[in-house]
């Protein structure tokens, strides 16, 4: 085909101007300017071609108008984007001659290497919503007159589109929401991708368009006319969104030039090049690819938040059962908050929003899982900006934080706190990991998002209505989580476990510890709790490291278990490892890995329980421990040494130095008072610590007294030192609230124990006299009694592991049976899991292990004794 002279001009014009646009972009990096200039260039080409091929002998008004749609309609055309054109006709069916002209017109554009996406539609079609093609209706929102019948365009723009929105606005919004939702689902509903699609990914350019369309539809619905203001977004969002828009446009422009086509994938190498050229960065500063992606995620987060907020606000009346449930949940509204359609609105109040209110807001969010409305975010944001970091760090901060961390939607609350700048006000160092990218093929998320996901993954282990039932492995880890005494320590450890990644250095653990220390100091956390947090963060990679070794090798297990020290810490570390791996990327925690993690946990837990007896304190090797406790009881080093000598390490690991010092003081008073008792109420349980001289049946006697008083023993530990002093601790629930409702009974209770132990009062008579119900109430789960004797785990005791149906008086029955058969309980580890009693005893008979015959007799007696009633 021979080109007309005018086409040659256009080719030259197009080529020269395109090169100029590119050069300007490469100099300035201004994507918006480049897109604007390109749009103007195509306008001039389109106008020339229109005159030459379409309008030559057209009557005016022609009943034909040429419109720009999409990005071109917004006067922003990227280097390789499609040129979206609409030939709008008044007639239902255009004249065939006209169609021929349109075809030639389009052909010319193709010959100029412009990718044209052209359609011809009658006015009547544009005036109604086609639910099969909502994208077309949406594209009309950006329509712009290019050439032809201005009157026809004005009619569409000024009358028909507003009328369509008035009539079908909500349907358009619903369809747009559905299309957006499907698009997000294709990208797993996350902005975090190693190689995101700048246009289609959540937080990308398409989401920005959606936000603008939703705002425009809302404005059109309200006023029935096109708004005069160009920027319709919520005022609080405008600046960050404008900044995000300029960034995204610059990057998209760069990608088009980089790929030489309309390819919006931010591949690894394009990230490298964009970073090297400072694309989208103020001053075009060259930065690392990781830092550049950090900037990307910050902007994506802004866009994603805005889009989510506007989609929520625009959502129509609930039609699905879940949406009706959401509306029902607005019954949780209170004097501070109103909940509508799953969004939290702050009740109107004249009083300024203070710190306490802000905490209440996030606690409410953490408990109920709703999102903050745009207005709530704005009001909170303004208030938070006025807070002084120092004034936030009071001793009540830990109480607030605990409430948030322990609540089922803790992660959502933390995300909201983070995005509103509250988290960084409370913990200034948190900015170090804000949108921080770890650039490798394994880490999908930024460090802050990974942190929130770890907390979320643990909460997801717990049952919630509407959730899928857990997998086999999830149920095991879920069981562990429910057993934790202080889960908030685990959650706060996770909150800080990777904070060191924001600092240079080989070990993020070493870098992170000082940050954690200063962040958590002075906010009401006890010293021993801080110690646990420090331990968890220090060792949070230990279990993963051990998994790379042979987890069925005894030595591997022993070394790992010795490093961890206590069952409680082992549980926490296991869950921390579970959460950490699970939150690296969606595929990281394979069933294979979960199984290995569980097996290692089991092996280490069993080792801990089966090695208590052999692992004892010996002063000559433990100078540091002696020093640490000795500092609390000055001038008593010799006596302290004698007290500690021979105690299992389990005792030292499960008690703080302060507690051990207190027990030591109690042991020093035994000469005056042979039974020393300490009783306190903590975390819903009573904790009874008793020191006395070792003699037969002490453990059984205490268990009997507790049983006689109607107490349900949940946990207990029994230890003895080389000098023959026993240190027994019982944790129990006061089933009938005897002590709580009758404070004078506390003294009588303690006296009762002393009297029975000293022989003044008969335990038998005490048990007879009480006669309370012997059951915990009906239970669906029947637990078969299981006994396992083991003569190999300990060098000088027989290990008995017993599992049975828990019931009041159980421990007394077991201990007294063992006593009847002459067994000395060297160590006892008593635990309860729901209705299951799980007890471990280290037994000797006349200072030796139990023979096979002896074990057989005890087994028979226990099975008989523990026969269900």
């Amino acid at each position, binding site marked *: 085909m021979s080109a007309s002279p005018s086409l040659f001009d256009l080719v030259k014009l197009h080529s020269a101007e395109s090169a100029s646009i590119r050069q300007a972009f490469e100099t300035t990096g201004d994507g918006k300017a480049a897109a604007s200039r390109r749009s103007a260039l195509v306008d001039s080409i389109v106008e020339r071609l229109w005159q030459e091929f379409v309008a030559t002998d057209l009557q005016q008004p022609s009943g034909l108008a040429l419109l720009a749609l999409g990005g071109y309609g917004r006067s922003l055309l990227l280097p390789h984007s499609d040129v979206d054109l609409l030939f709008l006709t008044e007639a239902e069916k255009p004249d065939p001659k006209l169609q021929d002209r349109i075809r030639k017109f389009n052909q010319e554009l193709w010959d100029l290497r412009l990718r044209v996406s052209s359609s011809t539609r009658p006015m009547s079609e544009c005036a109604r919503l086609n639910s099969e093609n909502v994208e077309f209706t949406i594209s009309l929102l950006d329509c712009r007159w290019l050439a032809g019948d201005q009157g026809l365009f004005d009619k569409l723009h000024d009358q028909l589109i507003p009328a369509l929105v008035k009539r079908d606005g909500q349907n358009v919004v619903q369809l747009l929401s559905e299309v957006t939702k499907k698009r997000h689902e294709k990208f797993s509903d996350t902005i975090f991708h190693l190689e995101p699609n700048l246009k289609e990914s959540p937080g990308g350019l398409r989401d920005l368009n959606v936000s603008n369309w939703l705002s425009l539809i809302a404005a059109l619905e309200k006023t029935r006319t096109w708004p005069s203001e160009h920027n319709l977004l919520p005022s609080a969002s405008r600046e960050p969104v404008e900044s995000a828009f300029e960034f995204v446009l610059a990057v998209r422009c760069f990608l088009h030039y980089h790929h030489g086509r309309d390819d919006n994938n931010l591949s690894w190498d394009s990230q490298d090049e964009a970073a090297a050229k400072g694309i989208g960065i103020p001053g075009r500063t060259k930065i690392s690819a990781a830092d550049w992606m950090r900037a990307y995620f910050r902007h994506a987060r802004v866009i994603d938040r805005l889009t989510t907020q506007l989609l929520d606000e625009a959502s129509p009346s609930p039609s699905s059962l879940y949406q009706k449930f959401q509306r029902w949940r607005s019954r949780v509204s209170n004097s501070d908050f109103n909940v509508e359609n799953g969004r939290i609105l702050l009740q109107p109040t004249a009083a300024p929003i203070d710190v306490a209110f802000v905490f209440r807001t996030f606690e409410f969010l953490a408990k109920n899982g709703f999102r903050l409305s745009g207005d709530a975010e704005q009001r909170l944001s303004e208030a938070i900006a006025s807070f002084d970091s120092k004034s936030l760090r009071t001793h009540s901060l830990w109480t607030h934080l605990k409430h948030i961390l322990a609540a089922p939607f803790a992660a959502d609350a933390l995300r909201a706190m983070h995005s509103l700048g509250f988290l960084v006000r409370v913990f200034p160092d948190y900015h170090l990991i804000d949108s921080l990218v770890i650039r490798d093929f394994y880490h999908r998320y930024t460090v802050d998002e990974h942190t929130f996901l770890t907390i979320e993954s643990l909460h997801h282990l717990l049952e919630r209505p509407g959730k899928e039932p857990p997998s086999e492995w999830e149920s095991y880890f879920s069981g562990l989580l429910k057993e934790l005494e202080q889960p908030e320590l685990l959650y706060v450890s996770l909150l800080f476990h990777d904070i060191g990644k924001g600092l240079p250095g080989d070990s993020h653990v070493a870098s992170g510890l000082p940050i954690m220390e200063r962040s958590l100091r002075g906010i009401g956390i006890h010293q021993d709790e801080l110690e646990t947090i420090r331990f968890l963060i220090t060792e949070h990679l230990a279990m993963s490291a051990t998994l790379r070794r042979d987890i069925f090798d005894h030595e591997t297990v022993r070394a790992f278990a010795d490093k961890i020290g206590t069952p409680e810490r082992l549980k926490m570390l296991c869950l921390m490892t579970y959460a950490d791996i699970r939150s690296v990327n969606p595929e990281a925690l394979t069933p*294979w890995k979960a199984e290995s993690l569980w097996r290692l946990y089991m*092996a280490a837990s069993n080792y801990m329980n089966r090695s208590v007896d052999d692992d004892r304190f010996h002063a000559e090797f433990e100078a540091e421990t002696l020093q640490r406790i000795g500092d609390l009881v000055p001038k008593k080093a010799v006596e302290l040494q004698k007290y500690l000598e021979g105690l299992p390490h389990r005792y030292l690991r499960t008690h703080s130095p302060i507690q051990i010092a207190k027990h030591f003081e109690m042991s020093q008073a035994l000469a005056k008072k042979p039974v020393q008792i300490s009783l306190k109420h903590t975390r819903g349980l009573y904790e009874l610590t008793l020191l006395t001289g070792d003699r037969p049946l002490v453990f059984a006697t205490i268990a009997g007294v507790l049983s006689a008083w109607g107490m349900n023993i949940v946990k207990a530990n029994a230890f003895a030192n080389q000098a023959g002093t026993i240190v027994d601790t019982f944790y129990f629930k006061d089933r009938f609230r005897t002590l709580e409702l009758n404070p004078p009974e506390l003294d009588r209770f303690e006296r009762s124990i002393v009297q029975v132990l000293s022989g003044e009062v008969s335990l038998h008579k005490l048990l007879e006299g009480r006669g309370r119900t012997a059951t915990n109430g009906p239970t669906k789960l029947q637990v078969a009694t299981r006994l396992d004797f083991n003569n190999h785990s300990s060098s000088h005791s027989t290990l008995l*592991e017993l599992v049975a149906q828990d019931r009041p008086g159980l421990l007394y029955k077991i201990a007294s049976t063992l006593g009847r058969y002459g067994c000395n309980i060297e160590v006892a580890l008593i*635990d309860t899991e729901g209705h299951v009693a799980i007890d471990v005893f280290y037994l000797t008979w006349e200072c030796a292990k139990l023979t096979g015959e002896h074990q057989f007799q005890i087994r028979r007696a226990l099975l008989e004794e523990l026969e269900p009633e």
Partner: protein
Amino acid sequence: MTKLEAVIQPSKLDAVKDALMEIGVDGMTILEVRGHGRQKGHTEFYRGREYTVDLLPKVKLEVVLADELVEKAVAAVVSAARSGKIGDGKIFLSHIDDAIRIRNEERGAAAL
């Protein structure tokens, strides 16, 4: 060309990878698998519950090699993966008809 499949203890993976890279084998595929040979499994008790470990976690490594490299690769894997205990694993060799590089359709040993 020969395909070498090795089922090894997971704890030996790093050593085997390093050993293969040292003799010039760069590309490999790693799979997390479960299985047992003579090692069989065992029963573990934890808090009164029985957990049967009949299929043990292993790692399967697959590489396709030029024939002249096979014996060296076998020796490298054996040396790195061996502990001397039951459960060390096994190596299987099989013939490969052809290999094609997807990017540029190169064939044969050149595609390895």
